[in-house]
């Protein structure tokens, strides 16, 4: 019987016994693989240990640096932060802390470089942008600083992002206030006003800033709200008085400051401002209910006072203006008429508005200036 096989018959190939050198070759490769595996395990363990110890050491240095920074030892703090950063390169907190120390140590340029590295890695980091803004302020580059302040305000802050963002905005506001940029200041204050804020201090501060930003009416609203919460809030009365002065409502200012002084009679600032409000009320020709004669007398006195001050500091221009002022006085005879009072007041206001730079210091924040400022609006 024929046997059937599946498929074609095959013949076993000649077996090639392994040579000694082949065995050694294969064994060597195997040993190399084992050695590699051993080194890999060792390296991984060492690397992990290294990273762990570095992080611990870096954290310790960072903590030391923070203490030193608080103690005002910015240079030493910077050394600690720099070492911590070299141990843990990717740590943005260390980099920011280093920048802060450098800034505090007066090394604004280095701080800027440190921060640039951070910002290259984390463009929207709120804290880094805020620090960069501070660096630029230190370097007297306010226009560039504003840009970084905005990035800080809308950047990422992690925990407490809302309050950190508000703080950044407040810092920008302070910068704008010092530069008397009223429109920009107002633009930054409006978002703050819209935010719910139960704390009294920020609201009070916001109100004062509104006055600086040329929006005393908004300030008044805030102070009134504060008074509705606490009718015996002397600061609110004083603020209301300040807003009223800015609005030109001198009668109300006088009344508000008087109330503030009544509530806090020992507060020298409030007492002084109350006296000022009184003086403003007493010399302003625009208050209601004083009569034409009094208005005329006040206008003449105002014009005279402005003329004298400008006369005292303005040089050649001074004599010309003084002549004009005196001519006006001579032309306008004292009568019980409204027209002469208005002309005198207007001229006083014009004189004040056109005062040269040399005369700016001659007009401090006194009663005369407050009245003139209101008339110039």
């Amino acid at each position: 019987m024929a046997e059937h096989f599946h498929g074609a018959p095959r013949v076993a190939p000649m077996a090639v016994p392994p040579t000694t050198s082949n065995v050694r070759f294969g064994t060597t490769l195997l040993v190399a693989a084992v050695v590699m595996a051993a080194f890999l395990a060792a390296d991984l363990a060492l690397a992990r240990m290294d990273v762990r110890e570095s992080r611990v050491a870096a954290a310790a240095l960072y903590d030391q640096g923070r203490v030193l920074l608080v103690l005002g030892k910015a240079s030493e703090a910077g050394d600690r932060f720099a070492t911590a950063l070299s141990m843990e390169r990717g740590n943005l907190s260390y980099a920011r802390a280093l920048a802060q120390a450098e800034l505090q140590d007066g090394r604004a340029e280095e701080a800027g470089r440190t921060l640039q590295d951070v910002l290259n890695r984390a463009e929207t980091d709120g804290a880094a942008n805020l620090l960069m803004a501070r660096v630029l302020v230190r370097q007297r580059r306010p226009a560039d600083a504003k840009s970084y302040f905005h990035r800080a305000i809308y950047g990422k802050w992690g925990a407490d992002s809302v309050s950190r963002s508000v703080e950044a905005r407040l810092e920008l506001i302070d910068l704008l206030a010092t530069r008397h940029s009223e429109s920009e200041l107002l633009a930054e204050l409006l978002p703050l006003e819209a935010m719910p804020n139960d704390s009294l201090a920020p609201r009070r501060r916001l109100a004062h800033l509104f006055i600086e930003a040329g929006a005393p009416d908004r300030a008044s609203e805030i102070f009134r709200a504060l008074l509705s919460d606490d009718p015996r809030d002397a600061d609110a009365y004083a603020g209301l008085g300040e807003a009223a002065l800015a609005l030109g409502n001198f009668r109300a200012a006088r009344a508000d400051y008087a109330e503030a002084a009544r509530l806090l009679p020992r507060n020298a600032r409030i007492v002084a401002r109350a006296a000022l409000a009184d003086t403003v009320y007493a010399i302003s020709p625009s208050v209601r209910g004083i009569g034409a004669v009094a208005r005329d007398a006040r206008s003449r006195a105002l014009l005279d006072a402005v003329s004298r001050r400008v006369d005292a500091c303005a040089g050649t221009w001074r004599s010309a203006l003084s002549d004009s002022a005196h001519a006006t006085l001579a032309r306008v005879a004292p009568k019980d008429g409204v027209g002469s009072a208005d002309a005198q007041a207007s001229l006083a206001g014009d004189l004040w508005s056109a005062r040269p730079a040399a005369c700016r210091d001659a007009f401090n924040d006194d009663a005369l200036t407050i009245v003139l400022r209101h008339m110039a609006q």
Partner: protein
Amino acid sequence: MTVPPPTTALVPRRPFLLRIGELVEDLRRQEDRLALLLSLVIGALVGLVTVAFMLLTGRLSAHMYPAGGDGWRRILVPTLGALVSGVLLVRFFPDARGSGIPQTRAAIFIHDGHISLKTVIGKFVCCATALGSGIALGREGPSVQIGAGIASVLSRRLGLSREQVRWLVPVGASAALAAAFNTPIAAVLFSLEEIMGDLHAPILGSVVLSSVTSWMVLHLLLGDEPLFHVSAYHLVSAWELLVYVVLGVVGGLGSVAFVKLLLWLRKHFYQLPKNTLWVQPVVGGLTVGLIGFVVPQVLGVGYDQVDRVLGGEVVLRFVVLLATLKIVATAVCYASGNAGGIFGPSMFIGAMMGAAVGRVAHIALPGITADAGAYALVGMGTAFAGIIRTPLTSVIMIFEVTRDYTIIVPLMISNLTAFYISQRLQHEPIYEALARQDGLHLPTGASRDHARRLHVNSAIREAPEPLDAGLTVCDAAALLADSALDAWPVQDAEGFLGMVRRREVAEWARSGKGDGTLRAMLETTGGTITGEHFVHVHGDQPLGQALARMGETHQTVLPVVSRANVRLLLGLVTLPDVLTAYGVQSAADIPHEERASG
């Protein structure tokens, strides 16, 4: 009765081991596949070992110098570390002394690529001990020897030939440098430029592969951070290039000072009694300890301090002091026989010198110069080019360690200036000088340059009037009977046809083939320009190649033909002319008729 059909045995499966054996045999036969595999294996293994070396050295250093540690450690630890490594080097690992670069080159050019496993282990242990204790040397040079050694051990164990072992040593060296410095490209260049001395070495592919593999291992284990972090510096003004030239001058002079001091000290240490060899490193340890007690930044490699000056933290007097002290500390440590390299210290010295120049420049010319950190960055490469004398490698290395391309043009200018000054004032490069002090005569850059400068054109002579291809062999034999030349050119209407050897022509004439033409003879012997035995050279080829061809073909006269047209015979080159060009034989010794016409 039927004959049963022949049965065929069922084919048993070949045993697994047998199949593996066949695979191995197959692999060993295919050299290109073997080279590929070994490059990968060496790259991976060397990368792992180098990373282990760096981590262990770092950990040792951290334990030796804990944060807030006492000042006495800075004196005692390097001294003890030097003592321990000195004893180990003398008693157990004598071949592990030095930086590792000259030793690697010696292995390639003198010892057929042989570096023992004991040397590898010794280098690892002794350098880790020395560097961990704060000795002011670098880890990159030792890494190179360790990597080269691993390649040598592995290839010898695999039973490779001596030639193959020799070629694999730089593959290991390149892998080590790629991991140690995180600079894969510079590692390749350094292996070729410095270790092999030949940028066109045929091992380029293997070196690249191992370097990349090692670099990948490094990144797998330690991440992607560059060695130094720098701000984005750039050229402030074109006038600044002049300042970088000044930096190149300063860097060059500083490099020369360092090299001369190191060699001078080493020469004097060599003159001490041999039985003090084990304690000599202590001198280096104590020196760096005393310096380090006052200025701790000098201890170890000092990369932290380099990082700081690169960031612009530069106090002029301090960086000048650091540069000076580091030159002294490193020179003493190396000369006294401590295990460690000079790569890292070179970059430290360069960074400090650059920072000093940069600070002065920025004070004097604030409007047109960058911050001192930019100059520190360029200074690193400048000192490297001046000390190590590998200008191409130094440019690429600085770019790779900082990843800052913006400073590349000032870097090239400064490097070149330093290289030129260093070459003029210290003729012999440091590694060649160190090898010579050890009694090793390795191929030098000068000798390689000299060999490369000798071309066939240096020895060419005017060709004599060629014989016509139609001339009979008998007539040709008569004409050539008194010729001094062993071979003579033949031409036809189209130009040069081939060379006939005087001896062959005479044999043909004697053997009754004298009536045949020279053309027929050339065609029969394959000596025409299209024949398989047509040997020739070109004028721009190295003279060594002409000599090799003479040896292979047993001919003492070769035709020099044009590359554009092999039918255009430009001249002849003879063995005596070659010897004259090499200076072996003077022209006066050559018979008049054999002298080259040029």
